[in-house]
Structure formats: C-alpha cells, structure tokens
C-alpha cells in the first residue's frame, strides 16, 4: 500500500492564506461592512429612545397575590434624569377594600435613580366565599354564573395608583387562588414534556452519535457516516447523524435474550432501575428563570420575574422547586446503584456480579465526595434549592469563581458517578463488559441511553452549581434586558464574530456542509447587524420577556452541550484507572480535598460574614471573594431589595 500516493487524489492540501481569504471572503465583506457601520455609528450622537412616557417604573409591573402571600414590595423607580414629585397613592378598583398599603406613604420627591418602596398586602379573608359569582368571568350561552363554594376564594382585582409628574399610573393588583392542577400539575407536565422531549432525549441520542463521531475526529478517523436516506434521488447522509435512528432500530429488532437461570423479574426491572433515576433527577434542574403568563412581550424587572418564579402569575422553569433539591438528587442518584447491582445479580453470571460489585463500590465511594464538594457551594450561597442557587450566583459570582477546587472535585466525582472512562471499570467496554454483559436489545439500550442521560445530567448539574445556570457571564443580561447598551453591542458583536468565523471555517472545511455553514454565517451576520443597530439606537436595555427567556434557555442549552462535549473529550483522552487507584483517588484524594475545601470555605465565610468584625485577609488558595453573596450587590441601593442573596449565618458556618 506504500505505493498508492501517486494514484490518489491527495486528500490533504496545505493550508494557504489565499485560499482561506477566498473562502471566507463573503464573511469578511460582511465584517468590513459592519465594522464601517460601527465606526460611523461611533460618530453619531445617538439618544436613547427609551420610553419617556413612563418616568416612574413600577417593579413589579403587576402584583399577584395568593392566599398565603405576605405583603408584596412594590418599588417605584425614577428612570428619568430629573427629580420627580410623586404622591397621591391610593388603591382603587373593584376590590379596593381587600388590598391595603402596609404603612402609609407620603408624597415625596424621587431623585433620578431613586426607588420608593411600598408594601401592599391583601386581606384574603375578605375574598373568601361564598359570595357573588366570579367577577369578570366570561358567561357564555347564558350559563348561570358560577357560584363560589364556602371555603374557596374568589378572584380579586384592584390597582395601586399614584401620580408622578402629573401623570397617574396604575399598578394592577391581583388576587387569585389557582387550583392545584393549574398551579402545579399542568405547568409541571408541560415542563416535563418540554425538557424531556425537546432536550434530554434528543441530546442523549445525539450523544450516542457525538461520542463516536467526536472520538473519531479526535483520533484522526472518519467515524460513522454510512447511514443514509434517499428521498427521490436525493441522498442525505448528514455526517452519519442517521446512525441514531438506525442504532435505535437495530436495538429494537435484536433478540431479547434472558439467560436461562436468570431471575426474570429483576432482570427485567434492572434496566428501568438504571434508567428511571437518571431521568427523574432532572426534576430539580432549573433550565431557565421563570415565565410570566400574559407578559411575554413586556419588558419586566427582576421583581416581576421573582414573583413569577415563586409561582405567582407565572411559573419557574424548573419541574419541581423543592427546598431540599440537592438532597433529592443524592437520594435519587443513589437509587441508580440498584440498577447496576440488580443487573449484575439477576443475570446469573459471575462476571456480571463482579461488575456489579465494582459499580456499586465505585458509585458509593464517589457519592461521598460529591456530597462533600457541594457543601462548599452551599456554604457560599446558603441554599439547597437549585433555582435559588442560580439566583444567588447571579447576585454574586459563579460557583466556578468562588469554588474552583470544588468545581474540579465535583466534576471528577460526577464523571466517576456516571461510570464512564477514565472511571469505567464497572463496564470496561473494550475487555470485560461488566454488569450488563448478558443484556441485549433494548434492555441493553436502556443502560446505554441511561448512561448518556447521566452525562447530560452531570452537565446540567455542573452548569447549575458552578456555571450560573441560564445566566450569561458577568451579569450582562438581567431580567429587563442587557445591563447597558454597550454590553448588548459587545455581546452581539462577540456572538456574531464567533458565529461568522466558525461558519466560514465550516464552509471551508467541507463542501457537504455549505448549507449548514451558510445558515450559521447568516445567523452571525444577523447578530452583527443587531450589534450595529444597538450602536445606533441604544437598543438592548429593555427587551421583551420572551426574548430574555429564550436567551436564557439557549445559554443553558449551550452550557450543557459544551460540558457534554468536554465529558466526551475527557472520556476519549484519559486512560482507565486501575481499581486500587480508583479507590485511592476517591478516598485519599477527593475526600480529604473536599473536606479541606469545606473547612476553608467555612472559615472564609465566617470571617467575612457581616456580623463578624472585619477580619484579616482570607487564607490563600481559598476563594477570596466568597462573600459578595452576603453583601449587597451593585444593582440595588437598598440592600433589602435583594432577599435572594442569602447571608450565610455565622451559626451555620461556625463549625471550625
């Protein structure tokens, strides 16, 4: 075969700058154009076209009460650049008797940027039935209006109005008592469908392809590329993406083999035990902040979204908001051990039992490390609830910054928990197969898919705990929009440049990818145009709610995808540990380090806690800025406006 070179059309061509320029010239033209526009924009003295009519911005723009809601704080912020007189606060509307201001407010003058804090409460008892028919209910076909039962609440509405700069503005106040179904069941079902059907399952199946394609690319091979579909003479190969479907079909049609002396019931159940926990833990993962019903196209403030995240007038983008969220994760993730153990035991195969033993020993050992590494983050942010954890990161710094050691330890232990290389001793794909050695067909497929779902979950958890969940870095995107027009331009410029450049690179790389590449280039160009548009108009500080939600979802998805990629990279780079090395890494490496991390974090948190006297500089190596979480943030002059930043109390942190 050494002689084939002269015959071959050479597959490699040297990279030449000129070829690169030619291939990327459309993109470069766009870049030049945009740069020219940007330069000309710099010379233009643009004026913010922000809405001048609403001088005073209420936060939230709408207050929603439930029967158990306490007083709601309504901030009135002066967004203009001159002082505004504000007064004549009153509560009006159909149910004005049921709502009240907690403390009387006097007319005052708000300086630019000042916020006036009002507290509104509701007398829920006055809205308790039985009473008149539901007000405002649409009565169709002459139906009698619905009567309200004895201990049900009726819908109540009013508004808080005030006069500022001669204009009367009203903040709607709403009281509702949604049924359990409409408050919890329906949103949860929709979110489950959204998350599972639109994200987890597609991503997990994509990973089965990505694993092989990425490993091939890393090892200078081609990888799966032969599955194809022909529609009317057009053959689609899509870089082997169709292997996902063909593999699924293959597994469905394979013989479903059960060893003769296997325990049939447990043998059947074991794949479910491995698969279901991997799916169920996703319930606690927040994949976005919150959606506010009926306000999708309004520009909302932090207070609005916080209200929706609490389930009032919206729903958090998280399937189950459990206060003990991370404990729930530990509880469920430990159940996955049963899947492996039962699979090994029920197969009636000594190698399977041995594999199961390895798996359970490994998973149990590394769970300890996982649990302890998270404690550091908990000390910093003071909550176990993932959504609150992300909000706390948004308010201070990402976990990656405050807890870099914990990040590495957690990531390592979590990879060990998924039983993938370099910790794949339970399976040992290339030699020993391990606990599912007897499984075939779709039963094996469940183990296989469960493993990839765990990969997705680890990515989701890492991005929740350490990478700020759905947030863009440096807090450039708040609930209302970008923090300033400049960050908006920088964001779109950066995203546009990255997209256009990678689109150009892909265009150059393969003639089959020109379609995809052109889509990416067009997307990048749109980003650049938006950046230029923002430079002209100052646009970007007040985005519609739905745009914020979409950006959040995309950010979260991209983070998860990138972490999945990283996990695959690790899996195909590192050699496998020996079993004693695995155990000593777990017990002698990760465990002491994570305990040290806890002690260090606790000390720093204790030293910087507000009630303690200002202490000396934190010990080196510790996250030095551990406590901006506790202190006020830059966003609010009144620190009480951020109840989301929990202060780690000295009592909790006082273990040392």
């Amino acid at each position, binding site marked *: *075969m050494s*002689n*084939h070179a*002269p*015959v*071959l*059309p050479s*597959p*490699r*061509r040297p*990279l030449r700058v000129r*070829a690169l320029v030619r291939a990327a010239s459309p993109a470069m033209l766009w870049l030049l154009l945009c740069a020219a526009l940007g330069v000309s924009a710099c010379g233009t003295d643009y004026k913010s076209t922000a809405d001048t009519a609403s001088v005073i911005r209420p936060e939230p723009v709408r207050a929603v009460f439930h029967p158990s809601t306490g007083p709601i704080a309504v901030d009135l912020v002066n967004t203009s650049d001159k002082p505004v007189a504000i007064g004549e606060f009153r509560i009006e509307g159909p149910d004005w008797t049921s709502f009240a201001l907690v403390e009387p407010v006097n007319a005052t003058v708000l300086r630019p940027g000042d916020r006036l804090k009002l507290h509104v409460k509701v007398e829920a008892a006055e809205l308790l039935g039985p009473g008149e028919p539901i007000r405002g209910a649409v009565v169709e076909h002459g139906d009698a209006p619905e009567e309200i039962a004895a201990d049900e609440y009726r819908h109540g509405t009013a508004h808080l109005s005030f006069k500022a700069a001669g204009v009367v503005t009203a903040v709607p106040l709403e009281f509702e008592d949604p049924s359990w179904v409409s408050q919890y069941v329906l949103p949860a079902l929709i979110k489950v469908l959204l998350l599972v059907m639109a994200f987890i399952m597609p991503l997990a199946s994509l990973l089965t392809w990505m694993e092989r394609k*990425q490993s091939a*690319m*890393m*090892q*200078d*091979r*081609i990888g799966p590329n*032969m599955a194809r579909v022909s529609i009317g003479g057009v*053959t689609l190969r899509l870089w082997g993406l169709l292997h996902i479907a063909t593999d699924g079909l293959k597994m469905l049609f394979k013989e479903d083999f059960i060893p003769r002396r296997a325990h049939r019931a447990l043998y059947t159940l074991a794949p479910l035990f491995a698969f279901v926990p991997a799916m169920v833990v996703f319930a606690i993962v927040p994949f976005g902040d919150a959606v506010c019903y009926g306000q999708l196209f309004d520009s909302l403030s932090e207070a609005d979204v916080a209200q929706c995240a609490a389930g009032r007038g919206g729903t958090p983008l998280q399937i189950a908001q459990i206060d003990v969220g991370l404990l729930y994760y530990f509880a469920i993730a430990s159940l996955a051990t049963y899947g492996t153990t039962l699979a090994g035991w029920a197969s009636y195969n000594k190698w399977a039992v041995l594999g199961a033993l390895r798996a359970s020993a490994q998973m149990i050992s590394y769970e300890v490390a996982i649990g302890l590494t998270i404690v550091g983050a908990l000390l910093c942010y003071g909550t176990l609830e993932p959504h609150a954890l992300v909000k706390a990161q948004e308010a201070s710094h990402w976990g990656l910054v405050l807890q870099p050691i914990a990040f*590495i330890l957690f990531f390592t232990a979590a990879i060990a928990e998924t039983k993938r290389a370099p910790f794949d001793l339970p399976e040992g794909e290339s030699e020993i197969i391990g606990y599912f050695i007897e499984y075939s067909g779709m039963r094996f497929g469940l183990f296989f898919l469960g493993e990839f779902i765990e990969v997705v979950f680890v990515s989701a958890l890492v991005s929740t705990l350490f990478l700020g969940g759905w947030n863009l870095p440096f807090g450039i995107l708040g609930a209302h929009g970008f923090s300033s027009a400049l960050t908006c331009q920088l964001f779109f410029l950066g995203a546009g440049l990255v997209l256009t450049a*990678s689109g150009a*690179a*892909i265009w*150059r*790389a*393969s003639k089959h990818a020109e379609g995809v590449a052109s889509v990416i280039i067009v997307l990048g160009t749109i980003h650049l145009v938006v950046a230029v548009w923002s430079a002209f108009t100052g646009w970007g500080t007040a985005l519609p709610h739905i745009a914020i939600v979409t950006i959040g979802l995309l950010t979260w998805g991209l983070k998860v995808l990138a972490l999945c990629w990283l996990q695959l*990279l*690790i899996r*195909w*780079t*590192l050699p496998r540990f020996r079993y004693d090395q695995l155990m000593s890494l777990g017990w002698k490496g990760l465990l002491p380090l994570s305990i040290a991390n806890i002690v260090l974090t606790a000390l720093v948190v204790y030293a910087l806690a507000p009630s303690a006297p200002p202490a000396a500089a934190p010990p080196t190596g510790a996250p030095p800025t551990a406590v901006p979480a506790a202190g006020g943030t830059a966003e609010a002059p009144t620190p009480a406006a951020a109840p989301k930043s929990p202060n780690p109390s000295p009592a909790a942190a006082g273990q040392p």
Partner: protein
Amino acid sequence: MTIGVKKVSLQRTTRDQIFLPAILEGLLTTARHFFKNTMTKGMGDVDTIRYGEPGVDPKSYYPERFRGVHRLMFRDDGSVRCVACMCCSTVCPARCIYIVAEDREDNNEKGPATFVIDELKCVVCGLCVEACPCDAIRMDTRTHMTPTEAREDAVLRKVDLMSRGGPSVAVQGGLGADYRADAPAADPRFVGR
C-alpha cells in the same frame, strides 16, 4: 533460598501526582486534533481512504502493483506463452496451480495441456508471477476474483485465463542482462494506469 523482592521506586514529581497538568495537556492535544479535523479543509489529519463509499471509484484507490485475478499472456502467433516449466506451481505456497505439460505442435518446446488455477485456494501472493521465466502469467488485471455461485466456477482453466490475456512485449527466450535498455516501448494499453 529466599525470594528477593525488588522495590521499584517510581520517580513521580508533584506535578505527576496532581494529575491535572498532564490531564490538561492531554485534553489540549485531543481537542487540537478535534478542531483541526472538523474545521479545516479535507478533514485535517484524517488519512482514511474512502474506499467503497458510494460515488467513489474503488479502482482509483488501487495501488500501482495491485494483484488481481490471474491471466495468461500470448505469443505473437496467439498461442500461450507458458512453457509448462512448473516454476509457478512449484513456488505457489497454496499449491493451487495444476499444470499438465505437452509438446507444442510447431516446434520442440513444451506447452501446457492443462493449466488450472483454483482461485479459492490462491492467497494472492504474486509469487507465481515472479517465478515465471517467460512473462506468461500475470496478475495485473485490476479486478478482484468475484464470488461465484458454484465452487467449480472459481477454478479457472486455460481458456478462462487466456480470455483475459494479451500479447506480451517480452521477447521469447529473454533479452539477456541488458533487457531493460533494449526493451521496446511499453504496451500502450497499460500505459497511464
């Protein structure tokens, strides 16, 4: 007798024991390959030959000295060049060449009465071609032995072998030590393969 225990002390630096720097290096190496292969033209360092893929002519990937199914060459008068010297059947490691010699009609040379190659046994080593003193047997057909329905169809006889044959430019009896210098121009049919 005591059993000696040899203690091997591993020279591990702190850097080795932290793992992380080495891991990072490894990840960077693989990531570099990943991006080079996905983002550059012609798939970067991927050397895989797209043999057998649809739309790719497999013959364009055949090496120059590809060994295909055998053929027997002609003399100028159209008779087979083989002189039944048995060199090939002797050298054949698979013992798959079977020759029965006979007298040629026109002169006192030998020729094959039977010339059979069992292509199922043949290991495609090409030794028969090298052994042949008169350029009678060749494997330059650039065709694989195709699968056959019956076993006998894979056993090629003289007619089958000669049906692929052609005239040879080699001079019968050889040219002596300087044959390269004096050889006539190559057969145009095989130029530019």
